[in-house]
């Protein structure tokens, strides 16, 4: 049995010169190797288009019922139309690529667009610990320190509350004081531990607290620490004296902690 397969259909605008030269009646050309070229004309919004459709005539073995259905006579809106697809109702659309979002192992390979957009629209990343806008609170490198601070604050709160009965203000003061006396040490060599650091900073003044930031999983230092002195003067002196000193293979950088807002 004979089936007709559509290969290409490219509507092209006729220039008037061509239109004069060519005959404007639809015609069919039977080429070699079963390629049939049909030329038809359609008019859309007053503009005449010439539609050249190439068919490949192929023979195919199909079930008998399917072959019988190929002989159906057109009915309804298609009554009287010639055999083959009509340009008004059928055309070959543009090439579409199948986009794979996962590879064979099931790993995501294509970032799904809308997830990103959804994230963008909901809210921007904001850290409530360090007030930074480049990460979430849960990923904050200073998280542990701030959490310790909060705990300390809570304890002090409980004490001051009994004494003064001023919860909110007392808390604010404590927080500010400890922030004020803290210096940030960056460019810290990995080998340096808390005792060594205490040794170095203890020469300046009384150190209340030392915190070395460590990776949550590996436990390796991240290369920065916070040192809190009892008085602000000591902290200022530490910054003046210990900034730019050599420690192992690194040059320490000591500065005020970034103000928390």
């Amino acid at each position, binding site marked *: 049995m004979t089936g007709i397969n559509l290969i290409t259909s490219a509507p092209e605008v006729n220039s008037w010169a061509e239109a004069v030269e060519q005959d404007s009646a639809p015609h069919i050309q039977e080429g070699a190797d079963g390629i049939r070229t049909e030329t038809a004309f359609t008019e859309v919004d007053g503009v005449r288009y010439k539609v050249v459709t190439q068919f490949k005539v192929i023979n195919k073995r199909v079930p008998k019922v399917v072959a019988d259905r190929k002989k159906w006579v057109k*009915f*309804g*809106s298609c009554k009287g139309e010639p055999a083959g*697809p*009509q340009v008004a109702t059928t055309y070959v659309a543009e090439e579409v*690529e*199948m986009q794979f*979002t996962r590879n064979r192992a099931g790993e995501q390979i294509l970032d799904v667009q809308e997830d990103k957009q959804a994230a963008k629209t909901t809210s921007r990343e904001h850290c409530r610990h360090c007030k930074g806008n480049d990460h979430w609170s849960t990923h904050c490198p200073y998280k542990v320190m701030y959490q310790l601070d909060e705990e300390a604050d809570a304890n002090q709160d409980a004490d001051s509350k009994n004494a003064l009965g001023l919860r909110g203000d007392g808390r604010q003061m404590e927080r500010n004081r400890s922030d004020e006396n803290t210096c940030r040490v960056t460019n810290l060599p990995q080998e340096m531990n808390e005792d060594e650091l205490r040794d170095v900073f203890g020469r300046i003044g009384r150190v209340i607290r030392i915190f070395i930031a460590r990776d949550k999983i590996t436990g390796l230092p991240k290369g920065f620490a916070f040192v809190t002195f009892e008085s602000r003067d000591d902290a200022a002196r530490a910054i003046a004296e210990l900034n730019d000193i050599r420690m192992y293979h690194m040059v320490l950088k000591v500065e005020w902690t970034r103000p928390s807002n």
Partner: protein
Amino acid sequence: MRPLSLKGHERALTRVRFNREGDLTFSCAKDKKPCVWYTENGERIGSYDGHNGAVWDIDVSWDTSKCVTASGDLTVKIWDAELGSCIYTINHQTPMKSCGFSYSGNLVCYTTQKMTKNLSTVQVRDLRDGNQMAEGAESFFSTQFDVNATTALFSQMDDIITIGFESGLLQQYDLRNPDSPINTNEVVHRYSIQDLQLSPRGDFLISASRDKTAALLDVNDLKKLKQYKSERPVNSACISPNRDHICLGGGEDAMQVTQTAVSAGHFEAKIYHMVFEEEFARFKGHFGPINTMAWHPSGTIIATGGEDGYVRIQEFDEDYLGFTYDF
């Protein structure tokens, strides 16, 4: 792949279906004329003229001798598939949203909408019985519901129908007992069921819902086996006949479509792995949401019908056919 784009409808598509061999594609839209096409080359064979309102559903019997259409003009019509002539017309007081043939092609089920004092119903008629098909006759099976039944189909031979509701409820009825359902699943979907399709082997059902998921259900007890999550409402889902793949189509609501960019609207069809429940591929095509889709019996073609009024018949290339999961 170069899909065939079929422009036979003036309005949004409501259903595309293949016949059993897959050589014909049936489509219906919110215009008045359901169409039939050759799948291979996209040639339109004819249109079933006679409805006077949106056509919501079309189904074809196993031997492709008859079609059934459900329409908003308060009729269900049975057609001679080859000649395009109307054989029977079933009238009702309210629009009909869904219809389907039984396995044998002798029974027709359809759902009617709830409107004023009329409750939503699901009814079944026997085409062999002249009394039932006569004008004004009653159907032999009818149940009433307070919520709209959106879709119904025969899920097991000629005995059991599965119904999806606007509330997200799913129920199965045995035709011998219209009083109570044999199975109910009210937990799997939270919003309206848009589409129910039977797997080609008849062992699974897939339900597509506005709650942005599609679920694979056991045909015997309606239990959820798998659930596929999408980012947009799912209007239609179908099961591959020869691979463990599921295809989901949907997109933003037609009412909100003008407010959405094409990329954000999510008008792609998405292919999921049936077991792993994860999307692994997608393909673009429509300018609006996909309202309906069907997988060709050969497994290499998917037909989709969109809100944009086009039917697209995409035949997959080696990219897809050669894709297998390593596990």
